[in-house]
């Protein structure tokens, strides 16, 4: 039992942990975040363990499985400390060589280094890789340094420092003021001022009040909250405890998707540890403050990320939003004052308390302070999680950090803000990214999804994809949202099928109006964004589909034709062999180029993929 009953006892324990660690001792950290897990990090970790033992070095080298480092594109990632040499796409068979060469002799293995996609330069250290170099990882940075199942790792890096400071040297009101001063805004999508929310909840009449951590991240392609909870659950918990103390709450919930099993597990481990250490429960650090946290696993409904739907779900009712004429900070969970913040918001709290609001404020723009974690995915070279200062431009994120578009293709749009965000065109690439600017251009910050699209993406098809998601994830309560999303999808579908009508754009605008204006919650309120933003910036693509019956990007099957360019056809016959519809005529070794019979072509694209000479043209 390691229960610490005072700040002094905590500091003593922290010193003990630090004293037992030698910062010069070699340490191999292996990213075991979800991306690297999928790329096969566990066999790599196993291979390191075996190899260290075989070479009799298991005592002299530390091996640590850490949370997500963010550079998921290049996983499994391995970092050798203290030099911080980054090896990427490591395989189990590389483990022995890394130990004999790098650990023992200090030699760098070129083959495993990251290669700059443009200059071809091999980069040895994590800090020099452009992907990391331009980030500002104040919230996410520790993910790569700690084992998320070890509270000692978190403590060694100064964990629960902020809590100790808050409990012993700050009045609850002071904490609220500090958060207000920091300008922190909710990272879950709404961007509401966190400090003001805390203040309203604190001042709301009533005895019991709740704090909730919203970990029901559901945007397609977004996984920053997942990686924080998986990789550094204590930072989120520490934020919650500080928040609860400031607000005067003694009971908290983390509402986490059940589809995030590792997040649930690591959080559960963290909760057990904090309870054991006396950092949760009764009389935390001898301060007289009591606080407990329960995990509530979500059942998979996207709409449960909406605050009132989430509270209904925690109460055991179906996850349906309710009107918020009386705010949840006054009457939320069980009709008690309730403060709900997102995972990333909570994780910002310890940093603000430790560093002070003034310092925190130095990063960001006028209306948006601090950093934001984005999940950068789609047609970009370096996909992964990036933490950047607010105000950075989209161009910097996509080209400098993200390394540009895959295959050197032309950028077309970036979709931000999750399914109900909007698509931002090339002309706005120099837009500084913050809450207000993204809203101004018809998109939103959302929880931080960023999907990059290139010239081969059809914007009508993209809008259809998101609308399909929304029509299925609408709870179905409001006519306007349930029927509105369904009908927008129907109209988009007929446009992509070549059956669009001249008046369909106007109809989409009508449906967008009613869905936005007449629906109860933010899901309906923002559901039209994918449609409106694509009409706003890519109207010509809609018109091409409707009037010319053409899909300029060559995506919508009903509107494209495949043809063989006779000048480029080498008469190899590969297309004919691959065609499942027997739609290609011609003879190998003849003099006549192959030909596609349009009536038989099912536009599956198999020949296009198969042709090695770019002879198949899509129009």
């Amino acid at each position, binding site marked *: 039992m390691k229960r610490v009953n005072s700040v002094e006892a905590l500091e003593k324990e922290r010193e003990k942990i630090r004293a037992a660690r030698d910062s010069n001792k070699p340490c191999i950290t292996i990213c075991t975040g979800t991306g690297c897990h999928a790329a096969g990090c566990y066999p790599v970790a196993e291979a390191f363990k075996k190899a260290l033992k075989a070479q009799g070095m298991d005592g002299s080298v530390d091996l640590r499985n850490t949370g997500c480092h963010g550079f998921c594109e290049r996983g499994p990632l391995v970092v050798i400390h203290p030099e911080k040499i980054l090896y990427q796409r490591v395989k189990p068979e590389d483990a022995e060589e890394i130990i004999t060469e790098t650990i023992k002799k200090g030699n760098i293995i070129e083959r495993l280094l990251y290669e700059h996609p443009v200059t071809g330069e091999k980069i040895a250290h994590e800090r020099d890789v452009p992907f990391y170099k331009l980030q500002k990882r104040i919230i996410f940075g520790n993910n790569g340094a700690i084992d998320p199942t070890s509270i000692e790792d978190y403590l060694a890096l100064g964990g629960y420092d902020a809590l100790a400071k808050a409990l012993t040297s700050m009045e609850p009101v002071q904490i609220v003021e500090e958060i207000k001063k920091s300008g922190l805004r909710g990272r879950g999508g709404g961007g509401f001022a966190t400090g003001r929310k805390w203040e309203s909840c604190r001042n709301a009449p009533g005895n019991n009040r709740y704090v909730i951590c919203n970990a029901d991240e559901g945007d397609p392609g977004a996984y920053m909250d997942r990686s924080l909870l998986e990789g550094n659950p204590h930072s989120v918990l520490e934020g919650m405890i500080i928040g609860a103390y400031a607000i005067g709450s003694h009971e908290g919930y983390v509402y986490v998707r059940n589809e995030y099993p590792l997040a649930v597990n690591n959080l559960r481990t963290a909760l057990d540890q904090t309870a054991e250490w006396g950092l949760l429960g009764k009389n935390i650090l001898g301060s007289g403050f009591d606080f407990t946290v329960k995990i509530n696993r979500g059942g998979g409904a996207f709409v449960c990320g909406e605050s009132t739907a989430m509270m209904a779900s925690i109460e055991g009712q179906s996850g349906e939003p309710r009107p918020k004429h009386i705010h949840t900070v006054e009457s939320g969970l069980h009709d008690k004052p309730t403060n709900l913040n997102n995972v990333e918001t909570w994780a910002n709290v310890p940093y603000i308390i430790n560093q002070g609001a003034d310092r925190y404020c130095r990063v960001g723009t006028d209306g948006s302070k601090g950093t934001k974690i984005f999940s950068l995915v789609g047609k970009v070279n370096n996909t992964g999680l990036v933490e950047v200062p607010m105000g950075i431009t989209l161009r910097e994120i996509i080209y400098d950090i993200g390394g540009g578009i895959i295959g050197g293709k032309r950028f077309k749009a970036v979709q931000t803000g999750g399914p109900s965000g909007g698509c931002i065109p090339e002309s706005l690439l120099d837009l500084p990214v913050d809450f207000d600017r993204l809203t101004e251009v018809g998109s939103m910050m959302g929880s931080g999804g960023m999907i990059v699209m290139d010239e081969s993406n059809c914007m009508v098809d993209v809008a259809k994809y998101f609308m399909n998601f929304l029509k299925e994830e609408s709870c179905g309560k409001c*006519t306007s949202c349930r029927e*509105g999303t369904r009908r927008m999808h129907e109209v988009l579908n007929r446009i992509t099928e070549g059956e669009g009508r001249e008046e369909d754009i106007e109809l989409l605008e009508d449906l967008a109006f009613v869905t936005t204006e007449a629906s109860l919650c933010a899901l309906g309120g923002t559901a039209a964004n994918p449609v409106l933003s694509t009409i706003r910036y890519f109207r010509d693509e809609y018109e091409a589909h409707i009037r010319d019956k053409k899909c300029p990007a060559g995506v919508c099957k009903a509107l494209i034709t495949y043809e063989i360019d006779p000048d480029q056809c080498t008469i190899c016959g590969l297309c004919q062999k691959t065609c499942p519809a027997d739609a290609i005529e011609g003879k190998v070794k003849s003099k006549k180029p192959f030909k596609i019979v349009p009536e038989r072509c099912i536009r599956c694209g198999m020949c296009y993929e198969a042709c090695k000479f770019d002879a198949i043209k899509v129009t």
Partner: protein
Amino acid sequence: MTKGDIIRFTIDGQEVEAEKGQTILPIALEAGFDIPHLCYNESVKPYGACRLCLVEVRKNGRTRMTTSCTYPVLEGIEVFTQTERVLRARRLIMELLLGRCPGDQVIQDMASDMGVKEVRFEKGDKDCILCGLCARVCDEVVGAHAIHFAQKGSERKMMPPYGNEPTTCIACGACVTVCPVDVIGLKEEGDERTIVRWKRTLKMKQCKVCGNYFAPWFQLETFREKAKLPKDFFDACPSCRESL
């Protein structure tokens, strides 16, 4: 009622009074304003599903569209029931409802009144508008909890638990009465009553005076137990009981 409990506000410029805790819609209807609505019924809590009763509310200089059935009255608010935005939204909702349930007479009539003549998308084949009144009256008034919403999004529907015969349904017919589009259906044949949509059939009790079958046994027993009535209370039907 103390003085502080009276709330004064305006609807389309006309001053009205309400009690604290009331919502806009019933006050407006009582004062003679014409606000279309489908999912509101004064016997149950407002739910705000159909969205037809939209109004614009101006509060502290900010105007927003909201459903009048769920919006609690506040001192000094200004409510507008006929603005261009409100009428446009209502017409579009009506078009959506007509598109979903083209066969419902009530929906056809309302749509026609609002100038919605045709729908610009594929006609649906549903009859239920998903207002939830049947389930809400069953929960809040009857207490039988025999029907509920199932699925989400465009798949949402009303049904008894797991789509089976609702074993807690007492066939009282309250859902049939409140359904604004009258698509549930109640049928009585001989000594049996059937709630058509939920496929629930129950035997009825015979009045010992007039000999008519007047209500399901299960319903009468449930009510008698709940209200702690004497054993013979329901031996006679309500009309005969009065004349006894």
